[in-house]
């Protein structure tokens, strides 16, 4: 009897679960069914944690140490120093952190930074004896030609790989969603502007481009020397100026709309424009263009991310467009417009949230591709600055030292695993969202 009741409870719980029919709950359930994809997702989360906490996992500085009676947290303190909030005390400036006479010190699990040189131990094999003090200081995955720890390099390389994947695809997602949404929601017939608005918007675009970018071209090009943060800020400022001027132009256009001739609506075939743009972008071979960009610019990961982001949005735009073509015909969108909400509001607030899940498919595959491109470029040694250690660079060392088999195996394996995980997640999402499997 008990057994039966228990069974009933379980059924009830399952029914309750089934009852949650919201779209996202459905997607989640479907995704959970695919165990391979689910575990891949968990491993990716784990890798992301490694990427975020790389400094705490592999570092030359101790996590906590006591020196001359006071306690320090050097790894945490380094963030403050980098931000300019604090300074190193005299006895910690330009020191070898390993040789200080601490009262006590707790080092991170891997007590090395990727750039630390260990001259007594170059091309140390991960198996066999290493000339290190104790097992604590062992190079678990061996060292390269200059005695740099491979495991530390791989841990910090995780950060670069994830950063490239996320920033590039973040940019791509932004462009893809906006363009795809406009194309899908408005189609070729629904987007109307008054004549005067069209003229003013075009003028606004011209002026906006001039004041946002051309007249500030030297500020922009100088910012490239100051690092990617400055470039990003200046680019955003440029886009902001441009958007502001276009908005202003449209505001100025309002009074002119009283004249009937000027107020006559013009239909803008957004869908055709966007799909043509997608076709053009798709025909550009990404790797070739990146090689061309890399050939003329200073080595910087930022450029690589920018180019990938500017070329990889097409898949996302296609998904969003296809979804919105379907969603815009549904009753609740009609209801929203009938209630007098503006079309833009109906699109962004009501239609888009229900069209976003396929985007994740494209993002998952896109991150895999971006990571692959970045590791390939650093493997070739072009486009990525010399001081940055990445998986691709570690792998490249294997080409000059064939005897060091660990240089060939481990970094490549990291690239392979990460790319595969993202591909598996992408496949799991595809299956979860495929309407053919709904029954």
């Amino acid at each position, binding site marked *: 009897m008990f057994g039966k009741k228990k069974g009933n409870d379980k059924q009830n719980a399952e029914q309750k679960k089934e009852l949650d029919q919201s779209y996202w709950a459905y997607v989640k359930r479907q995704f959970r069914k695919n165990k391979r994809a689910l575990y891949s997702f968990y491993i990716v989360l784990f890798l992301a944690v490694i990427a975020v906490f790389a400094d705490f996992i592999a570092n030359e500085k101790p996590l906590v140490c006591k020196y001359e009676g006071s306690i320090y947290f050097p790894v945490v303190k380094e963030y403050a120093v980098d931000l300019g909030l604090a300074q190193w005390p005299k006895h910690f400036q330009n020191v070898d952190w390993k040789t200080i006479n601490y009262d006590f010190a707790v080092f991170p699990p891997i007590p090395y930074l990727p750039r630390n040189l260990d001259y007594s131990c170059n091309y140390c094999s991960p198996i066999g004896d290493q000339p290190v003090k104790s097992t604590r200081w062992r190079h678990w995955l061996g060292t390269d030609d200059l005695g740099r720890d491979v495991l530390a390099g791989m841990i910090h390389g995780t950060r670069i790989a994830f950063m490239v994947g996320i920033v590039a695809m973040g940019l791509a997602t932004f462009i893809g969603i906006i363009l795809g949404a406009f194309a899908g929601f408005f189609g070729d017939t629904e987007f109307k502007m008054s004549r005067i608005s069209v003229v003013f918007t075009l003028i606004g675009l*011209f*002026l906006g*481009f*001039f*004041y946002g970018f*051309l*007249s500030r071209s*030297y500020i922009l090009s100088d910012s490239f020397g100051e690092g990617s943060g400055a470039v990003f800020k200046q680019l955003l400022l440029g886009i902001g100026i441009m958007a502001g001027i276009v908005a202003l132009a449209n505001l100025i256009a309002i009074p002119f709309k009283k004249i009937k001739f000027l107020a006559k609506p013009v239909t803008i075939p957004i869908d055709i424009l966007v799909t*043509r743009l997608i*076709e*053009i972008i*798709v*025909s*550009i*071979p*990404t*790797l*070739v*263009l990146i*090689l*061309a*960009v*890399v*050939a*003329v610019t200073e080595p910087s990961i930022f450029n690589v991310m920018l180019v990938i982001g500017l070329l990889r949005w097409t898949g996302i735009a296609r998904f969003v467009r296809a979804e919105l073509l379907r969603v815009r015909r549904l009753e609740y969108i009609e209801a929203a417009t009938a209630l007098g909400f503006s079309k833009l509001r109906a699109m962004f607030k009501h239609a888009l949230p229900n069209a976003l899940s396929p985007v994740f498919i494209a993002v998952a595959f896109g991150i895999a591709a971006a990571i*692959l491109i970045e*590791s*390939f470029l650093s*493997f*070739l040694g*072009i486009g990525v600055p010399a001081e940055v250690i990445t998986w691709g660079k570690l*792998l490249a060392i*294997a*080409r000059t030292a*064939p*005897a060091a*088999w660990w240089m*060939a*195996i481990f970094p*490549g*394996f990291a*690239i*392979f695993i990460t*790319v*595969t995980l993202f*591909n598996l997640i992408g496949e799991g999402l595809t299956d979860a969202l495929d309407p053919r499997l709904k029954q």
Partner: protein
Amino acid sequence: MFQYVLKRILIFIPTLIIISIVIFMLNIFAPGDPVEKMLGATPEGEPIPIEAYNAERKKLGLDLPVFYFAISSAAYPDTLYRIPKKADRENLSRLINDYGNWDKVDQYYKSTQALNDAVWAVKKDSLNPSALIKIKGAANNLSIRYKDKDIMKAFGKIKKYAEPIPSTAAILPFYEKALASYNDMKANPTLGKTKIPALNWYGFGNQYHNWFSKFLMFDFGRSFQDKRPIADKIWDYVYWTMIISLISIILTYLISIPLGIFSARNKGTRADGIVTTVLFILYSLPSFWVATLLITFLCQPDYLNWFPPYGIGEVKEGTGFFGTLGIRAYHLILPLFCWTYGSLAFLSRQMRGGMLSVLRQDYIRTARAKGLDEKKVIWKHAFRNSLLPIITLFANVFPLMISGSIVIEIIFTIPGMGRVLFEAIKYPDYPMVFTVVMLLALLSMIGYLIADILYAIVDPRITFK
């Protein structure tokens, strides 16, 4: 159909133009002065005689405006492109941006030119050797610096070193004039002008127009490395890339179609499981890693020394066809493997999926119900229809091959387009880089075009929407 193909070709043209503009702009922003690169270094850093410089510039077609039109601020003259040297142009452009009054900037430019000429006209004598070098450096700085601090420093240096020595004191009047025009420029800025947009139209006699039309006639200009025409050099490389890509595509299709069908027919069996898993792993393996592993473990005396690690082999004169083939095949086995396995896995998976979805169709059930044997069902009814997407996947596979070629050619040192691109980037030999990039892009785009047209031929339902 015809309409579709026509429309597809019409899309090809704007795409090509956009790509060519992007690549041309990158070419323009490439650091360094192409004229100086082409003329080579002068002894003792002496300035290149302006006549020779201008002649070479004209020969390279760089004496024209850059593009059909230019958007700039009203402060810029529409004739800035007539200033011969690239470094001068860039610096003047900075000065215009900072001060806004072209007339004064122009006067300053001319006075520094005169000063420079005067400095180089001074003969070396026993009193001035070290001073002269410093003055030359400072005078040169005048034409490449735009910050007030740097310019004042250069002026100070010239005066300091030129005054005490009689032979160099001759340049002082030029110095005074340059300094006066500099102060004049600084005193009368018209910064308002830099905030007014201006659009200049230059017409068809521009660098882009010439470059692109020459490109279409296969005239790619000359390489920085050996000054030879690129067109003469490049066809060998295209040959290797095309040959290996084609072999690879043929292999891909020959293996992946039976493999996909086999896997689909035995769906759910252990054999299918193994094939599917192996294909997925192959699909995710980065080819540059596989290539590195193969070279490390199969081509080195440290482990196994079975294959040559690089090149396409040397063929001695008089070797017969089969001898040549043997040498080439021996060298190309590993590259071909790395080149092929990715697209092979991709295509097999697609073939399997396509076949499975066809096998679910009603007409297959009908065919079976009517008592046809399995072979006939598969090959006569299912196969043809599952082939449609495979043919069109040519679009994905062909460009994949081309970019794949870059990776493999670099790692295995095969003299193809990828290898030559890599070497040109390292040099840096920009005309070569951008020619190869354009050709690679063109090849990929042609791949897409062919695939789309195939798509229309194979599936008449397709229309261009």
